[in-house]
Every structure is written in structure tokens, then in C-alpha cells.
């Protein structure tokens, strides 16, 4: 059943994404940026899905601490790990864009820096998990860490913004934005496809985590004999 849901989600994501790639490629080049503006169709959805992922990780972590149900722990890891990959996509695409437009691979501007810090924060989550052997302790400590990390995200964001701001202001949903409606439609479809991909990957990772727990259980049973 779960297998079918995952396959259906992946298929739907592909159906949405493939024609949309064609639509995006046929869009006229942006006036000042040329070709490279198309990266935004992936850059922003990746960041948005990673952001939603961190919120899901927080909720799952709190629920684990309250219920001690390992399902929530598995969800927290799955969502964080996939989120890290998506945030990496965001960072890499942002870096490519910066190379073309700004002429440098990396600029310490507000949003790039915050995104990088978030990546490092949540990488710490995985490193902490890896270092802890006993499953209950691992889940508990990781959940505590996740709560600290999530709390830090908005503080990081504001402090970095005060520190320096160079980044172009968001184009979408802002009054000064100049995003034609047909671009907006392609963008939203891409957003949906990326979300679906995120969810499907999370579910696959979730299943791995459950298998891992079963292996751990069997291993301990064997050791006890």
C-alpha cells in the first residue's frame, strides 16, 4: 500500500515536472538576467520545501518527546535528511546563479549566509544521531537538538539580515515584483512537483528507518540469546 502511494506521488511529480520543464525552457529570457533566471524555478521551491521540512521535524520531535513513539523519531530523521539534500540544492543553485549574475560563486549576503547556517545546524542533527548508539537516547537527544536548531533559525535569519544585506529582494508576491502570470503558473506547478518529490523521498527514507529499527531489534534479540 505504502509502496503504491510512493510510486503514485513520484509519478505525479514526474507528470507535473516534465511538461513544465518544456514550458520553462520556452519562456522568453528575462531582460537583465538572461537564461540563468530559470534557476529560480528550482532554487525557491527547494528552499521552501526545506523550510516546511524543518517545521515538520520540529513537530515530530516534540511529539516524540511527548509520546516516546518511535514513528515520530523516524519522521523527524527522514524529513531532516531529505530537507538537508533540498537545502543543498538551494545552496548550489544559488551559488551557480551568483556566479553568473554577481561573478562570484559565493557572496556573504543575508539569505545565502542564513541558508548555509541552517544547513550546518541541521547537519549537526545528523552527526549527533550518528554518534549515539542506544535508540531511545538517540531519539531523545536528537529531538532536543532539533528543537534548539529550529528555535535558532529565525534568530539566525534576523541577525544575519541586520549584519548585511545585498541579496535581491524577493520577486514573488511582493508589490514591486514583476512576474508575469504565465511564469507564475509554471512556477507554482514546479513548486507542487518539488513538494511531491520531497514527500515521496521522505516516505522512502521513513521506510528505511523502520527497517533499520527492525534490524536493530533482531540484532538485540540475537545478542540476548
Amino acid at each position: 500500500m505504502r509502496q503504491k502511494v510512493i510510486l503514485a506521488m513520484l509519478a505525479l511529480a514526474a507528470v507535473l515536472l516534465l511538461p513544465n520543464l518544456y514550458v520553462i525552457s520556452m519562456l522568453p529570457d528575462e531582460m537583465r538576467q538572461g537564461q540563468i533566471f530559470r534557476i529560480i524555478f528550482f532554487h525557491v521551491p527547494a528552499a521552501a520545501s526545506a523550510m516546511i521540512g524543518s517545521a515538520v521535524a520540529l513537530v515530530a520531535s516534540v511529539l516524540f518527546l511527548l509520546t516516546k513513539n518511535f514513528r515520530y523519531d523516524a519522521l523527524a530523521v527522514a524529513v531532516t535528511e531529505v530537507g538537508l539534500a533540498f537545502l543543498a540544492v538551494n545552496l548550489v543553485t544559488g551559488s551557480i546563479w551568483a556566479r553568473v549574475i554577481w561573478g562570484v560563486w559565493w557572496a556573504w549576503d543575508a539569505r545565502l549566509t542564513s541558508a548555509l547556517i541552517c544547513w550546518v545546524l541541521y547537519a549537526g542533527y545528523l552527526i549527533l544521531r550518528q554518534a549515539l548508539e542506544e535508540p531511545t537516547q538517540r531519539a531523545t537527544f536528537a529531538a532536543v537538538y532539533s528543537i534548539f536548531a529550529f528555535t535558532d533559525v529565525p534568530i539566525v535569519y534576523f541577525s544575519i539580515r541586520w549584519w548585511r544585506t545585498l541579496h535581491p529582494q524577493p520577486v514573488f508576491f511582493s508589490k514591486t515584483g514583476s512576474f508575469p502570470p504565465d511564469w507564475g503558473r509554471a512556477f507554482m506547478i514546479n513548486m507542487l512537483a518539488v513538494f511531491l518529490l520531497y514527500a515521496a523521498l521522505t516516505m522512502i527514507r521513513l521506510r528505511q528507518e523502520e527497517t533499520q529499527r527492525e534490524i536493530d531489534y533482531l540484532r538485540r534479540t540475537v545478542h540476548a540469546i
Partner: protein
Amino acid sequence: MRFLRQVMVVTAKDLRAEMRTKEAINASFAFALVVLLLLSFAFDPTEETTRDISGGLLWIVFTFAGTLVLNRSFARELPNDCLDALIAAPVPGAALFLGKGLANFVLILAVELVALPVFGIFYNVRWTRQFWPLMLVLVLGTWGLTSIGTVFSALTVNIRLREVMLPLLVYPVLIPMLLGAMRLSALLVAGQEVTGDETVWFKLLFGFDIIFTSLSLVLMDTVLLG
């Protein structure tokens, strides 16, 4: 009242044990000296450069040196399973957190207060011109470092590579606090007053301390008992 008394008992215990061996504080201070020395090669310590980067330099030294103290905080409870006895006592996790946190705070602040004049001499800086505001930054920043560091010290105490793990986990979380402390320290060491937009950093430090202290108070029982 009872709560505060228990906090003080824990703090006094940690400080007394530390004063007997001076393990953490000696290592921490020596480390601060070495880093100060090394950083003098990283750039040419002329008056102008020093003024620009003094905040960053000081807080990197403080954070590195502080980590050594924080690492010892819960590691001290490992021999003889002392942590069991602390948990067994009718002391809430929040009191243990505050007690150990205060002890760490005192030790780190002591290292900082020795490192600061050394910095002044080595780098030829008259850092005392805004003495009290600078002390406020030191207190706020150090408490931020301590509150997160104490909880994370408990999180990492049973990990094989805890000496590496603690800074790896703590530093990224500390970044907002460090930004504020670095900016303010740079201004104050240069003898300038903190006015206008720059006061936002004081607000940031206060907010950071309050948020993470509350979070630590709430979560400490979970960390200690699972």
C-alpha cells in the same frame, strides 16, 4: 528559595571541585593565550586592523576557551557515576542546569577577564574606554554561550568524540549571539558609544539569552532522564 539554595549548592560544588584540580580553567586560559598568539600572525596587528576585527578576535578566543570549560562540566560527573547521585537527589533538572550553568559562567568569565588585558597589551589596544558597556556585552554573551553549552555538554557527555562534538553542535547555534557580541565589542573596544541602529544588538543578546535559557530550563529534565 529552596530552588535557589539548591542551585547555589550545585554551583559551589562544581567550583570547589574545579578549584581543587584547576583542570578546566588552566587549560582554558592557556588555550586562550595560544589562540591570541596565533591570531597575531593571521593579520598585521596595526592599530586600524585591530580596531576593525577586535570584536571577532575576542569572541573567537572566548568561545574556543569556553568550550574547554563546558566540556568538563558534565564530564566531571562521569567518574564514579556521580551523575546518578545528582539525578537521584530531590533536585529538579532546572536547578541542576542553573547550578552547573552558573559555575561554567563564573569560570568562563574569569578566563575572559584575564584574556582581555592580555589582548590589550599584545595588540596595543586601550580597551577600557567603554568599560561597563563592554562588561555588559561580556556577561550577556557569556551567558548565551553557557546556557546552550551546558545543555549540549549534557547531550554529548557519553559520546566517544565529545571534545569535538560539543563545539561542532554548539557553534552554529551560537552564531546570532556571536554576531551581536562581536559587533558590540568591536565598537566598544574602539571607544565608541553604542547608539542608533547598533542598539539592536543589545536587544538581540537579551532575546537570545532569554529564549535559550527558558528552552534549556524546560528541556533539561528530558536530557537527564530521557
